[in-house]
């Protein structure tokens, strides 16, 4: 659990241009690319998008080790999905391998490749861009650049900061329960999770009172300690994302493999 949350609070500051871009721009890039790819299932569009993403990778400021650590999980999702399509997909074209009810045909092979490439191309930009995004910067960008309601954005950020405290509470609870002679079964663990949830809500209500005592949530104009700026460079980054989506879709249409998923 703690390994999962490693580095959630403090992301290392990177000097790479894409890592330093405004989180709102990163959000836009990842969203535009996903929308472009969700519309179609074809190997050309997904392949071109993936190739362009790999070209942009050196500018994202991730060391190869960290890169692998945050992206191996996409492979974990993409490869089984491709295998499933290969074996159970709608049969079409010449049979390549046939074992009773399980047949691998040209049609299912090409859609398996398309599905795998598609999941990789949708997942990669999000995972890579999020790995260099600090939650605080993200909240600042959401509230200041995208103008989402600041009460909600800042409360979510405050609640996120409780995670570290809750890890300590978990330790305390474990020790207290061990002192009382509780075992380690599933029922005990669920009971401890419930106790932690009660503590979390209690802390939340106290936190709300404290925040209100300091003037949070009044209808006065808000000022910001950390101004979040959307510069021309962030505009270029967004444009780059749009370009990846447009070029890959154009390549798919040009190759004649682009097909709208809804039809």
């Amino acid at each position, binding site marked *: 659990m703690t390994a999962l949350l490693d580095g959630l609070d403090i992301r290392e500051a990177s000097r790479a241009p894409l890592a330093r871009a405004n989180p709102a721009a990163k959000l836009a890039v990842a969203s535009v690319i996903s929308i472009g790819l969700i519309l179609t299932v074809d190997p050309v569009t997904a392949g071109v998008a993936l190739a362009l993403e790999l070209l942009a990778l050196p500018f994202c400021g991730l060391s190869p080790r960290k890169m692998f650590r945050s992206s191996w999980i996409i492979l974990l999702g993409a490869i089984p999905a491709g295998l499933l399509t290969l074996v159970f997909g709608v049969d079409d074209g010449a049979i390549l391998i046939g074992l009773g009810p399980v047949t691998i045909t040209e049609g299912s092979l090409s859609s398996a490749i398309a599905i795998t490439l598609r999941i990789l191309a949708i997942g990669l930009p999000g995972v890579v861009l999020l790995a260099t995004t600090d939650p605080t910067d993200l909240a600042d960008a959401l509230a200041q650049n995208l103008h989402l309601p600041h009460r909600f954005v800042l409360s979510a950020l405050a609640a996120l900061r409780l995670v570290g405290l809750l890890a300590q509470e978990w330790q305390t609870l474990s020790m207290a329960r061990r002192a009382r002679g509780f075992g380690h079964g599933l029922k005990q663990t669920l009971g401890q999770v419930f106790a932690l*949830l009660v503590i979390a*809500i209690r802390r939340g209500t106290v936190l709300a009172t404290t925040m209100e005592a300091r003037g949070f949530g009044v209808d006065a104009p808000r000022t910001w300690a950390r101004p979040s700026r959307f510069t021309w460079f962030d505009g270029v980054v967004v444009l780059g994302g749009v370009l990846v989506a447009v070029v890959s879709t154009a390549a798919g249409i040009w190759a004649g493999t682009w097909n709208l998923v809804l039809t």
Partner: protein
Amino acid sequence: MRNTPWIGPRLYGAVAAVALAVVIYLVGLPEGISVFDTTLADLTLPIALFVGTAGVAITAATARAGRWRVVDIVTASVLGVAGGLVFAVWNAASTPLRDAMVPPTSAIIVGVWLFPAVLGALVVRKPGAAVYTELVAAALSALVGNEWGFSTVWYGLVEGMGAEVVFALVLYRRYGLPTALFAGAGAGVAVGLLDSLIYYPETLGAAGKLAYVLIAMGSGVVIAGLGSWLLTRALAATGTLAPLASGRSAERV
């Protein structure tokens, strides 16, 4: 805002609902599709009336439920963060399960990703609580890192809206077991449609997609609906929810 409930977004919401109803009436629904031997075109007038009145009623209900207080927002955020931690564990723990099961059967575990939506709405009882809680949980799940990246956040939005629709249709007045079960079903249908559209467009045929949506709905009803209702009841019994709307209706011991 507290004294003038019919201002700003709510007015636009009500006007938009009426406008949509007028558009439905003027354009008419397609002839081709029929439900229970009645073509949709014959249902144009009742559906238009329903859309208009329901839209106005829901916007009025959001005014009645009142503005979110800070304690509502923070509690919903905490529940969202708790849900996000559960997601982080479940994303990793469920991978072998998902790989072992073939779609549409794999939809059976999808309910775990839907519970924050129903839980948030049951605990906080404010319009938008389902969407907000699920969105926070999904955002944390994406920040911790998972195989779906930023699209997790869009998934969270759609799942939350699937549950939110049910709470809106009961005009944010009923928070009992039936509403919870229907909200779980709504979120399940939403995620089932999204999954079969994005992940299995070619793997599953029409029947497979229908089965996937139905299994996701069942999973949503049991895990997200019943589970969240039981959890809310247990939380209310501890007295933690006292500052919230759900705690005030808790049984006195």
